[in-house]
C-alpha cells in the first residue's frame, strides 16, 4: 500500500527555460500526459524518486502482511479465514508486481530489501500499529485499504508507465479487500453481540487517526510534493486526498452505527466537506522515525525471516546450478 514522505532530492523546481534540451523534452512529454517507459531518458532525480516511492510501496505490502498474519491463525470462521488468506496472498503478489516495476528503473530488489531491513528505507506508518482484536481485520480492510485505494486510484494516472499499470491491477484487488473488510464490520455490528460491537468501535478508535496519517504530512510540510506533482508522479496533494477519504468514509461509518474518535469532526456545508481535527503530527513523525508501537517487531520479523531463509535460498541456487551443469553434460555427451 503506500508511500508517504518520499524524498525527491530537489530543492527547487527548474523552469523550462533553465532546462537542457533533454530535460525539456522530458517535461513536455510529462505535460502532454505521455507515459514515461523504462527505456526512455529521464532525469536522475526522477528515477531515484520513483525507486524510493515504488520500493516504499512494495515494502509496505510485505510488512503489511504481518498485522494480518497475526490473526489469520485465529480467524473465527472458515469463510473469514479463507478471505484473510486470499487477501494476504494478494498482498504478497502486489509486492512482487511492485518490485518488478521498480526493477524496470534499474534498481535491484535485494538491495532495496536490504535497505528496508537496515531501517534506511521506509514503509507505510500504518503497519506499525498492532492488531488487537478480530475487528481490526475488518477495520484494516475498510480504513487502511480504503485509504490506499484513494491514493492508488490517482496513481493509476502516474507518469511512469510500469508503476501506473501496476496500480491498475492492484486497485481492482484492493477494492475487493475493502468491501470484505467493511462487510466484516457490518456483520459484527448488525448480527453480533455487545462484545463484538465494542470490538468494532475499539478498532475504529485505534485505527482512524493512523489511517489519516497514511496520506503523509500536510501540504505545508510536504517539501517534496511540488516536484513530484510537476513530474506527475503525484497527481493530487496529500491534503486533497485525505479530505476525499474522510468525505467518503464518514457516511460508511454512520451506516455502521459507529462514532468517529474526532470531537472536531463536523459537516461544513459552505465547503461541501467535513472539517476535522488536528492530526497528532508528533506521533506520525515518531512512528516514521522507528518509534511506533510495532516498528521493532515488524522489522525483527522480516530480518529474522531473511536470516532463517538464507540456507533455503542458497540451496535453491546450488540446486539450479547442479541441474544446469547436468544438462550441459548430457547435451555434450
Amino acid at each position, binding site marked *: 500500500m503506500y508511500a508517504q514522505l518520499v524524498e525527491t532530492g530537489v530543492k527547487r523546481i527548474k523552469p523550462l527555460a533553465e532546462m537542457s534540451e533533454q530535460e525539456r523534452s522530458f517535461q513536455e512529454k510529462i505535460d502532454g500526459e505521455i507515459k514515461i517507459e523504462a527505456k526512455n531518458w529521464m532525469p536522475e532525480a526522477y528515477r531515484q524518486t520513483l525507486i524510493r516511492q515504488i520500493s516504499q510501496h512494495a515494502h509496505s505490502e*510485505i510488512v503489511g502482511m504481518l498485522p494480518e498474519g497475526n490473526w489469520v491463525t485465529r480467524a473465527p470462521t472458515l469463510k473469514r479465514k479463507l478471505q484473510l488468506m486470499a487477501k494476504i496472498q494478494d498482498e504478497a503478489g502486489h509486492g512482487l508486481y511492485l518490485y518488478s516495476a521498480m526493477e524496470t528503473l534499474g534498481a535491484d530488489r535485494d538491495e532495496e530489501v536490504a535497505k528496508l531491513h537496515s531501517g534506511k528505507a521506509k514503509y507505510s506508518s500504518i503497519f506499525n500499529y498492532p492488531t488487537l482484536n478480530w475487528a481490526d481485520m475488518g477495520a484494516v480492510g475498510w480504513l487502511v485499504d480504503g485509504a490506499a485505494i484513494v491514493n492508488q486510484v490517482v496513481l493509476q494516472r502516474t507518469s511512469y508507465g510500469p508503476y501506473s499499470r501496476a496500480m491498475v491491477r492492484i486497485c481492482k484487488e484492493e477494492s475487493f479487500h475493502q468491501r470484505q473488510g467493511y462487510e466484516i464490520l457490518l456483520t459484527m455490528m448488525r448480527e453480533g453481540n455487545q462484545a463484538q460491537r465494542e470490538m468494532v468501535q475499539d478498532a475504529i478508535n485505534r485505527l482512524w487517526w493512523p489511517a489519516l496519517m497514511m496520506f503523509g504530512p500536510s501540504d505545508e510540510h510536504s517539501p517534496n510534493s511540488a516536484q513530484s506533482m510537476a513530474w506527475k508522479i503525484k497527481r493530487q496533494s496529500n491534503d486533497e486526498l485525505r479530505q476525499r477519504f474522510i468525505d467518503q468514509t464518514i457516511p460508511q461509518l454512520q451506516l455502521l452505527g459507529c462514532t468517529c474518535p474526532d470531537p472536531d469532526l463536523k459537516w461544513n456545508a459552505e465547503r461541501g466537506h467535513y472539517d476535522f481535527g488536528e492530526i497528532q503530527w508528533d506521533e506520525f513523525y515518531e512512528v516514521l522515525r522507528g518509534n511506533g508501537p510495532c516498528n521493532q517487531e515488524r522489522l525483527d*520479523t522480516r530480518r529474522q525471516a531473511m536470516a532463517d531463509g538464507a540456507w533455503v535460498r542458497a540451496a535453491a541456487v546450488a540446486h539450479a546450478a547442479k541441474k544446469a551443469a547436468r544438462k550441459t553434460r548430457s547435451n555434450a555427451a
Partner: protein
Amino acid sequence: MNPANDLLDHLLRLGDSALVQGQRLCEWCGRAPALEEELALMNVGLDLVGQARNWLDYAAERLADGRDADHLAFRRDERAYRNLLLVEQPNGDFAVTMLKQFFYDAWHLETLKGLCQSSDPRLAGIAAKALKEVTYHLRRSSEWVERLGDGTEESHQRMLLAIPRLWRFTRELTAPDAAESRLHQAGLLADPAQVADAWQATVATVFSHATLPLPEAPSHFYLDARKGLHTEHLGLLLAQMQSLPRAYPDAVW
C-alpha cells in the same frame, strides 16, 4: 460396524487433515524464506482450507445434528479430531515444513484420485476439484524436497534431520485400516493398499532424486489419529485456532 459412521469418520479425516495442514501454513505468514514462498505457502494453505470446508460441509450434512462446518472446525476437541498425525507436527524449519507437505501431498493425491471414482457423486465431485489443486501442491513440494536434498551441504543435512522427525508418522499413510477397507468394498473409496503402494513409489523416486536415504518402514506405535489419539501438538494448535468461537459461542462473524 455402521458404514455411515465409517464414511463420516473418513470425511473428518480428509477435512481435518486439510484444515490442520492449512493452519500450519498460516503460521508461516511473513516468515517465509522468499517473497515467492510467502505467496506459494499461503496459496497452498488457501486451497486446503477451502477443501476442508467442502469436506466438513458434507460431514455436517450427513451428521444432521444441527452442527455446521464451522461448528465442526471450531468446537470439536482434539479427541474428536481425525486429522493425520503428520500434519499437526510443528513447522520446524523450512526442511521440516516441505518434507511434511510432500509426505502429505503424495498421500493426498492418491487418495483423491481414488475418491474421484467413488460411487458417491458428492465425494467424487469434491475430490475432482481438490485433485487439480493437490496436483500442483505435490509438484511444488517434490521440487523443494529435491532442491533441499540435492542443494548445499547444509540443506542436505537439514533434510537428513527432518526425516526422522516425520518418518514415524508416515505409518498412518500406508497402514491398512479396517474402516477404509469396508468403504473400499462398498465402492466409496480407492483400495487403501493401492494408495499405500503409490505413496511409497512417489517417495522412493523423489528421495532418490533428492539424494536422500529411504528409511525402513516405520513400526506401529501407541498414537492413532483414527481414534483421536494425537500428539501433544494438536491441543495447542486448536487452542489458538478456536479461541474466538470458544470465547464467544453465540457470536455471528
